[in-house]
């Protein structure tokens, strides 16, 4: 396995406040890597920096052999890195189909229609409502749309920021199953979650982030079994 994404000594700050304080982690091809931690731990900041929406103070982000820290955000997606952001951020006034097509904005090949069909196969409800404005969707449906939209860029790696946030247990399960499906189809996944149990159960590797630093790492199973993780994130004594 080769490293698909390698983050090294990454420091990101908002003005004087350091949100990410020198973290390093790697995601190998074919893996599902989970980044867990409480609110404010720096998970979303890390993803937004990888996508180029924020610029690091120092450190490097190498994706597929290329340093991303100087690449414009709109160019990163065409390198094969898709980001489904926190809060889903679908385009509310556009239809489902338009949202999905925007996911393929950076592509010029002829396979877009095919991938639209693939997204509809992954989430049949999207096809039923393809002409409906996305803003009328429930949280779970919006999450499916956000994931489908991210997959429309045909990414090598998909970053998912809190896909289970605010979802019913049933819908959460549905989303997490899809994560596994996508992995089996060959997409490498970096999953950020507050829901540690769900995220770690499917992870080949996990990192625990606390106020901007990685405090623990290991395989998903190791972390699930660790006392610290159980106490802090799974609500067990």
């Amino acid at each position, binding site marked *: 396995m080769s490293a698909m994404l390698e983050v090294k000594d990454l420091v990101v700050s908002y003005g004087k406040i350091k949100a990410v304080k020198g973290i390093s982690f790697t995601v190998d091809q074919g893996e599902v890597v989970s980044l867990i931690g409480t609110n404010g731990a720096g998970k979303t900041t890390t993803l937004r920096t990888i*996508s*180029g*929406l924020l610029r690091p103070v120092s450190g490097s982000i190498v994706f597929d052999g290329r340093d991303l820290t100087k690449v*414009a*955000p*709109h*160019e990163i*997606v*065409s390198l094969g890195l*898709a*980001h489904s*952001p926190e*809060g889903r*951020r679908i*385009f*509310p*006034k*556009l239809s489902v189909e*338009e949202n999905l*097509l*925007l*996911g393929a*904005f*950076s592509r010029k090949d002829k396979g877009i229609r095919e991938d639209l069909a693939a997204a509809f196969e992954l989430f049949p409800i999207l096809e039923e409502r393809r002409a409906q404005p996305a803003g009328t969707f429930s949280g779970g449906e919006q999450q499916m749309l956000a994931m489908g*939209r991210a997959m429309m*860029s045909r990414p090598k790696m998909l970053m998912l920021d809190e896909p289970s946030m605010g979802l019913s247990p049933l819908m959460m399960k549905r989303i997490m199953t899809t994560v596994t499906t996508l992995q089996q189809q060959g997409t490498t996944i970096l999953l950020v979650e507050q829901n540690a149990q769900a995220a770690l159960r499917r992870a080949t590797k996990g990192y625990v982030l606390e106020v901007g630093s990685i405090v623990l790492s290991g395989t998903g199973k190791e972390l699930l079994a660790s006392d610290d993780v159980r106490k802090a994130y799974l609500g067990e004594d």
Partner: protein
Amino acid sequence: MELAQQLVNGLTLGSLYALIAVGYTVVYGIIQLINFAHGEIFMVGAFGALSTALLFFRSYVDGGEMLPFWALPVLIVGAVAASVAIAVLMERIAYRPLRNAPRLAPLITAIGISVFLQEAVRLLYGKIPSFPDAKQKVPFPQIEVVSGPAFNLGGVTLQRSTIFTVGALVICAAGLFYFVSRTKTGRAMQAVSQDPDTARLMGINVDRIIVVAFVIGATLAAVAGIAQGLQVTNINFKMGFLAGLKAFTAAVLGGIGNVWGAVIGGLTLGLVEALAVQFIPGTFGGSPWKDVWAFALLILVLVFRPQGLLGAKVVDRA
């Protein structure tokens, strides 16, 4: 008969406002900037058309003859080129460096550009060899078919320039509708206006889309510049001020940020002005009061429907 006549007048005026108003609203929709220099883009368009006539159709202009009809598309190209060039430069030089500045900074800059462009045309236009001085109003070339004697439809006077103006609005609105809803760039524009950061994640170059918004606004304003020149048969360096203010009012009236709102707002404002001139009796009627009624309408809408006629309620993005 008077009603029909005022409806025609209102529609003409309203179409002109609508063509300019689109420029305010598309730029606002993307970067939340009220581009107060947009009225000057309209003025520059009119001067662009005049310059084109002076450069390519000089013998007609000097001989006091009407330009042939085929000169119309050439003048339109000249007007659009001038407006677009100035709008793109303005965005690149003045607004882009202020992209992350407090919102007051680009607003003041816009007013500065507005004054700058007016003065530049006033002082420099006549310095171009063989061009007329533009410190006062300058005659605008008249063109076969779109200039000339008015039609009379059962007592209602229909100017040829009216047909040009309303026709231009219909064609521009149809083109804009197609562009925004059917093309990839149009969809990207909608995405940027709804959520710029997420649009970036889709691979959309937001800076490029902002330029596209300025280009669209400038194109329609340039066409409006020609329409104005044909209607009043002369142009001047300050023609953008009141027209720009009215068009801005129209954009707010329709719901700023909403393209169809700008069209509806422009037409409404034009009709209200025309009808107020004719039908409000006594001291408060007549053309001296038309601007008062136009802005009174704006105030009423802002009090009772602040989001404008078509605008959705503005919710701050999280």
